[in-house]
């Protein structure tokens, strides 16, 4: 059974719903990283006390999860369904193949190590 890494860049506000929805379909583990970035979505400017504060790189959350191939489509659909608002800035999902997974505690390998 093959393995795929899902990297999803999402809005911070969508983290909790995404986590809950993924848990519901059986995805228990994931890595969450606080990141900044932008695609076509432009930055945000706030004028506070007459001074402009521009956020060129908007705060985003990156979810990383490695799954057995059979779960990947459902996980991707789940992420899309809970994070999509239809507006620019909803984020992106990247998929890549994983050659091997090793559980450090007992050196278990492959899908069973996930």
């Amino acid at each position, binding site marked *: 059974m093959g393995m795929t890494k899902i990297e999803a860049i999402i809005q911070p*506000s969508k983290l909790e719903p995404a986590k809950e929805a993924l848990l519901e379909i059986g995805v228990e583990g994931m890595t969450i990283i606080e990141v900044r970035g932008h695609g076509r979505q432009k930055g*945000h400017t*706030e004028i*506070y*006390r*007459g001074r402009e504060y521009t956020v060129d790189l908007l*705060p985003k959350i990156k979810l990383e999860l490695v799954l057995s191939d059979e779960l990947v489509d459902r996980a991707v659909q789940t992420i899309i369904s809970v994070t999509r608002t239809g507006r620019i800035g909803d984020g992106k999902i990247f998929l890549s193949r994983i050659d091997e997974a090793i559980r450090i505690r007992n050196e278990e390998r492959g899908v069973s190590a996930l």
Partner: protein
Amino acid sequence: MSVVFSSGEVRERYESGLAALRREFDYSGNGVAVVSGRTALVDDVVLTCYNQLVEKEIVPPNCVSIVALGGYGRGSLLPHSDVDLLFLFRDGKHEAAYKDQLSQIYLDLWDLKIRASATARTVVECGKLDLENPEFTVSLLDSRFLIGDRELFDEVRNKVLPALMRKSGTALMNLVCQSARTRHAKYANTIYHLEPQVKEGPGGLRDYNLANWLALAKSFRASGLWPAPESLFRFPLRAELNSAFDFLVSVRCFLHYRNGRDDNQLSWEAQDAAAEKGIGAPSVSIQPAQWMREYFRNARTIHGACLQLMDDAMRTPASLLDKLRGIPRRATGTKSDAALSTILQLENEPSWKTALAIFQRMALEPLQLSVDAQRLLRASASQFASASAKPAWPELSPILVGRFAGSALRAMRDSGYLDVLISELKLIDALVIRDYFHRYTVDEHSILTIDTLHGLRSSESEWAQRFAEVLDELDKPEVLYLALLLHDVGKGVEGEDHVVGSLRIAKQVLVRLNLDPQDQDTVLFLIRSHLEMSASMRRDIFDSKVIGALAAKVETPEPLKMLTLLTYADISSVNPEAMTDWKAETLWHLYASTANFLNRHVDEAIVHGTLDSDASGKFHSFPPQLAKQMQPFLQGLPQRYLKIYSPEQIVQHFSLFSKLQHGGVELSLLPDRDLYELTIVAADKAGLFATIAGALSASGMEIVKANAFSNSSGVAVDCFYFKDRFRTLDLNASEHEQLKEKIARILRGERSLDELIRSRSGLRRSTTPKVQIETRILLENESSTHNTVLEVVAQDRPGLLYQIAQCLMQLGCNIEIALIETEGEMALDVFYLTVDGRKLSIEMHNRLREELQEKLGDDLA
């Protein structure tokens, strides 16, 4: 491969000895017997190995002195600790001739699964301080002769090492202290970790050893002789340290046996198991939380002794005793300076005032209590248990706002005084609440939040600097610090949501402390809302609905500032990595957006019809019919008005309103902390605000803050808060009435403002600004439904507000609402404007902007 042990007899003796120690420990839980027992077993192995090497003529007798170092030297070998050996040679020739043969001992130890490390040195080499490896010289302080040439060992012990200590002892101890400081910093300088490191962490056994080295070096420096180990510390500290050592050694033995290796992390699971077995404790089985309190009590003893000796060794900061001599008499009652320095030693019952003067001083300077002072304070605290029944806010408040409040609060906690002042804090004393984010006990986390805010100003982080500015703007920071101290107290109550519990407990604390009712409300609001901004940060902070919802909860800028700072401190104090730049930036934008929202939407929520229950509740201490009577006055005023003024102020405004006659003006002038508050109730008309601002400025008053609102019937309530720059009002009581009369006459048109301005020099700049503030003008029609919002940020200077208001008046702008603030040298003025009842046109925007820029720029030039 061993060449010495052919029979396996030594192995059997060693292994059966270890097994016996383990059985004994399982039965007694006493680690002291284990560490001395294992030391004896390893001694037996080393001695047997050496004797066999000599018997087999592999080495000649007395070619070396074999010395135990470190923990092995101290006779405290834990079950899985390393064994440090020194092969001490007379000279390099002996070393070259016998070093390899002696390594058999080292190999045999490894064959017995004893992790040994051996160092070879000549006598001369032992007399040199290696700055890159001071640990070796330190380890010589714990050296113990095992076998071989006793004279070599005695030469090092009695001549070489004393000479080195005389020459470089201070430098050596400084190096050791610096290393300890780095180690302590790694553990955030606190013993109160949820999963403490029993060896390396503050208050761990490494600190116990350090305290012994420092005490030994100090004694040697004084007498030139090695002191007897039992004389290193005076009674009762000696007994306390011995007891703490026994406890921690037992805990470490337990951890070594449990983990099967030299792992000294006291994990939650290990805490449960240790508590169940009653490790180190007198009773057989106790609750984990109670057992951990026992752990912290012992760690605190070691940490306190260690810090004091480090302080002695490094000579900074100065000792508490020296500092106390400088406490002014008025702060410590009638005690003389001489009595002060010894008061805690001489009197069984140090006065309440003296104890609090110590803590207040600690909050202002980087001081630490000596262990003796801690003990005396602890002993005295119990005698003041009844003090919790009397209001103590005046004593506690200055401690909370001191730069070193955290240090003072820790001293108060450790001595029991904090419990005397706020007995409810016992609920979270050294309390371990297990979650995967928090690193410290609940009480330590709470004190760390206060440390975090006090540290903002000295932080180099861009975000910390911005939050520091917000902190500097608070009117009553002590209220925020109290909220931080109490925000998690509910975690000490099992089975109750901690926010609910904290609120319930805080209510009784605040009443007992006799806080001003408004301050009580603020503390309760902050506790109730202390997770709100964290929750908002998980939403879309660029969504105006999210910002609007938060603004609706905080209602006015001051609570927003406090809640922002509380959130920053709370997250930062979870663990050292919790407040990332990412989170700090998100929090900052949430704060800035909400602050803007609050300033630009004041006119959206106004008082309509009958007051809601919140607003009515505000007047509960007044006759019930009053709220109803005030309806015509309150009708149409922004809700912000009800939030920023106390019930007493509103009732006073109503009283002025009730006296108001057609075309008249009613004034009141009252002192307000270090400012004066001038309230004017009058029929709203063009130029009213500008006229008052001008009259005050021309009278030499420096306007710091102002709010101007008007109700549906066209009555304006304008409040100006100003500094009496020339102390005219302070020094002449009659001036109060004269100032009021002067302003009333100008407002009634009976006296000329221009004339007054010409006759006074009040509008001239009095001082050169320390910080240059660039004038910035923002005009926008989007935020408010009915008004144009004008924001002016400018260098504060006498007469500024009058200049702006005059400019608005000349262009026919009506000020519907004004919110005037001064932060340091920055004036932050927000106006809600209309012209003929409508928002300003874009042409008018441009005209107004140009006029203001010209007027304010001219003045600056």
